[in-house]
């Protein structure tokens, strides 16, 4: 059986990759994808702990997270499309004005 530490390490690496992506990429869609990676890193942690502790709580929470992530992706992509129509750009730095 793979020890807990390995799962957590993979999860931490994934989370770091996701975070780096959010900060460093200049494309809104890539940023959304990076957020998905961060979410999945967390999911992995939940599942790993659930298995370690022998309960199903962690797995149930993961289902919730996946549902919310799906919704978030749908809304986020819709916003991205709307933004793109206005500015012909996907660079988040183009969207700094607080009032349209």
């Amino acid at each position, binding site marked *: 059986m793979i020890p807990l530490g390995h799962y957590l390490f993979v999860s931490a690496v994934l989370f770091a990759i996701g975070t780096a992506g959010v900060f460093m990429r200049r494309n809104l869609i890539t940023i959304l994808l990076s957020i998905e990676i961060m979410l999945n890193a967390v999911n992995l942690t939940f599942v790993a702990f659930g298995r370690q502790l022998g309960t199903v709580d962690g797995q149930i929470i993961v289902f919730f997270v996946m549902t919310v992530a799906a919704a978030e992706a749908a809304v986020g992509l819709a916003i991205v499309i709307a933004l793109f129509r206005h500015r012909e750009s996907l660079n988040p730095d183009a969207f*700094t*004005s*607080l009032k349209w």
Partner: protein
Amino acid sequence: MLALIPLFPLLGFLVNASFGRRLSKNLSGSLASAVMVASFVVSVMAVVDLAGLPAGERAIEQTVYTWIASGDFVLDLTFRVDPLAAVMILIVSGIGALIHIYSTAYMHEESDREYARYFSYLNLFAAFMLVLVLGANFLVLFVGWEGVGLCSYLLIGFWFRKKSASDAGKKAFVVNRIGDYAFVLGVLLLFVRFGSLDFQRLAGLVSAMPAEEGVFGVISIATLLLFIGATGKSAQIPLYVWLPDAMEGPTPVSALIHAATMVTAGVYMIGRNAVLFSHAPETMMVVAVIGALTALMAATIGLVQNDIKRVLAYSTVSQLGLMFLAMGVGAFGAGIFHLYTHAFFKALLFLGSGAVIHALHGEQDIRHMGGLKRYLPTTYWTFLIGSLAIAGVPFLSGFFSKDEILYETFHEGHTLLWLMAAVTSLLTATYMFRLVFLTFHGERRHDGAGHLHDAPPAMAIVLVILAVGSALAGYVGIPHALGGHHQLAAWLAPSFQPPGSAEGIEAAAEAPAVELTLMAVSSAIAIGGILLASFIWLRRRELADALSRRFAAIYTLLLNKYFVDEIYDAAVVHPIQHGSERALWRGFDVAVVDGAVNGAGTIVAEGSGLLRRLQTGSVRAYAGSMFIGVIVILGYYLWR
């Protein structure tokens, strides 16, 4: 029943103030006069009841309700009529009623609305004055005291669209306020020391104490403060400056203020607290000296003024000075006697001058009058009687009362004060007859064309009644030296004694020779003054001009009233205005108050400006701050 006396005029005030603009002039005028007459009738009934009681216990009390009850301290709204208050209510309601009747004709050119406003103020004035004289304790007196101050402001500034009138109203109010401040302090001091505000209780408590001979104890300080209050109300040095300006009001108002109400309040207040003042000889000395100085100073100013009402105003100040002189030398009866006779002839003189002004359509400068005797016979003859009375010509009312003051002053050993009072009498006779001669005698200098109409009936009747009063009012106080019994002094005496000491004052046991001599002297003074006036202003008109040129410096000084207004302006008004502007307005209001408010605004605005920079709109900046925040929190929990 006593409560009815001030209640009637108050009722008149309420009706005229609420519905006056819808009432016709006849209705509001006769209503106002009727309530005054009703008040007078009730006063007479009260006084008749009072006279029915034995001499030692003449006092009728009515407690209307308990005004203040706080722990041990209970204060009732109590009216009390004793011999002194009896004289006062008769003067106030009687002379007041006559002035109301006169006003119905005098003010007839005003619009309905103004007419009702005028009468509502007039009624309120009388109501407050009656409260003042009927109050059985200091607080009730103070209600009236402040009330007449308010009404004087309203009435002096009646024609408030005229700048000088509204200024004069404000001046009267502010000057009175200074005196009232001292008055309140005096009342509080008495309350703290004696725990009571009732006049009789105070008199009883004080009479058990020794007189403060040569020391400045509580009673001296308290009475001195009360006297400062009296100088404000009764126009004495240093607070007399409002009274001559008070003639900006309608003439009957001047008559009311100068004769029946308001200015008599200070004299009355001292008479009411005669026991207190008698226990403070130092204060009494101050009262006497201030009184004599005021009398002399005002008389000299009156000598050169050219406005008919202004001469009369200074004559009031001067006569009030004599009353205070009498109070100060302990001759309370003489002071009240003069107050009583003065009420008649001063009301008569003011109303007479009102008739002259009315006939000349507003002309007040005596240099533009002259020769009116032929056109205004009623006014002339009544005015002449008033002038003879105030000058102190023998066997008219002013003679008896003024003579008594002179005699008492001399009798008490104040020879210098007597001399000042005697000179004042001479000046009084002179300036009054200067007024008479310049106004009514000589050639006509008034160029207004057309027929001059004498006083209309309502005014003429009042003038005649007052003239009869001015001539005969003195006969209630014929001195013993002339074989009289001086009923007024005997009547008033219990009011100046502590309660319970029933013995009447001893009749002056002085050999009548002294009194008769003094009487002859003052008669000679009065007649001499009149002759002097007739010589200067009737026979040799050029002499007056020559004199004023010869003594130009003195003439200018007197004409400008010793520059007292200017001195007050420079010494008090100007510093206060400048201090208010520099320190209070620019210094405190603008710098501190506005500074604090604006500063708070600036801090918020600047702080927001700084914080605003954090909200860039850049999503990654937000995400970065969240990331750093998480790291910090995690770091804290991991490495603490």
